[in-house]
């Protein structure tokens, strides 16, 4: 297999108002059962609305990983993640992708959170599954804060070769002296599977938390469709 790296991204008309391109540094770790292993430090790109943007593409033999992360201003921390994984080989592939960022302004120790993830899958006989840990999780320092698509989980593209599903969740967490926040994906991809995840995690702004969470907390904690 040959891999060719050309420009990883076209940046169109950005940065004109950015005061710093390295306001927020993130670390992206990718590991695959085909021997893929990389840890990359990404400098955040400041968007005009104050968000920080990271993107990175990685190819190792049959594994292709495309990642994009957008974090909103820290005081109302919100991290959107768009992940696309492709296994173009003939064997199943285990993939772990984690994005970590340091929190420069700490949320309150007691915080409400919201999360959602969509999952699109494609390919002949395509299947994504996880047995040993949640497919998607958020870890603050060493504490598991949130998880979606809890294990065991499996989802297939069916006969048509294309399908989608999603999971949402919310809850409360108490952690003092936050340091780092990590979003983590752990999936097994069958041969020929391409999968895309799109969603986010947020600490609910204090003023809005009651209004936002009250109806949700009155219902069940997590919905999967």
């Amino acid at each position: 297999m040959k891999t060719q790296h050309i420009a990883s991204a076209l940046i169109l008309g950005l940065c004109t108002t950015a005061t710093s391109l390295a306001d927020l540094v993130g670390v992206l770790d990718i590991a695959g059962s085909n021997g893929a292993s990389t840890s990359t430090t990404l400098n955040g790109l400041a968007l005009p609305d104050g968000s920080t943007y990271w993107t990175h593409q990685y190819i190792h033999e049959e594994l292709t990983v495309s990642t994009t992360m957008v974090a909103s201003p820290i005081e109302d921390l919100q991290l959107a993640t768009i992940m696309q994984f492709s296994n173009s080989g003939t064997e199943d592939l285990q993939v772990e992708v984690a994005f970590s960022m340091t929190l420069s302004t700490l949320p309150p120790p007691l915080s409400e959170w919201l999360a959602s993830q969509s999952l699109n899958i494609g390919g002949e006989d395509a299947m994504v599954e996880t047995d040993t840990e949640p497919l998607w999780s958020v870890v603050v320092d060493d504490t598991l804060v949130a998880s979606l698509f809890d294990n065991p989980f499996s989802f297939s593209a069916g006969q048509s070769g294309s399908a989608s599903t999603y999971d949402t969740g919310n809850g409360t967490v108490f952690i003092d002296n936050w340091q780092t926040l990590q979003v983590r994906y752990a999936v097994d991809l069958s041969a020929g599977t391409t999968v895309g995840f799109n969603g986010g995690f947020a600490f609910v702004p204090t003023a809005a938390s009651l209004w936002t969470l009250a109806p949700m907390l009155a219902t069940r904690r997590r919905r999967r469709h």
Partner: protein
Amino acid sequence: MVFLAMCWLAPTAIAGGPIPAEFYWQASSAPDDPVAAELSMLGEWTNIDEASTVYTGSLLSTAWHLTWTTTVTNGQEQMIDTILSVTNLGATTQSFVTGTSLQSALAPGDSLLSLACSLAVTNLQFDGAATLETVGEDPLVQAKIDSTVATSNFDAVYALTANGPFGVATDSAASMTTVQAIDPAGLSVWARFMLTPGDTTTLHLLAAYSTIPAPPASLMVALLWCLAPSRRRS
């Protein structure tokens, strides 16, 4: 005859290069500034084998963000398999057009074209809703042979809405049609849609073109033998 058949089946990748595929992208925030380029020039790629290439990359503007992972196959069948994630970073609803084209001679004659799609839209805000919908009378997704629409999914008027904070909605559809194209020169898959501000969507589009196999030669010989007048010894 054999040489012609081999021409149809031969992959068009130049030795070591990717299977050529073109990408088109246009946003209503900059209608006069579309992106139209070889996928190999927009991101990274790797060849799976002699007949398939995987492309991945992202584009960013002040008004939108786009990420793709696309596999194109040009072998016994032609296939475009792409996942596109789009975020509307603007303050108003925008319309987007995206197209991925495999410019390669397709096998003529009776063929099957299948189109499968799945959609997801996410509201990444603490209020309101996120909506993905068709533009005008156009279907949301089309597969074309050359410039002719062969099949489509999510015909107008179609809307997919995710309600509430961090709400998500998903949908999927599939179609298949027979095609009798004369000298078909390319397969492409297109999506045209509107997306509300601050929201994000992922589309998976899978278009596959394959010939309907002709009866094997041995079957034809057997058929001719059966139909031939039988000899009688007088």
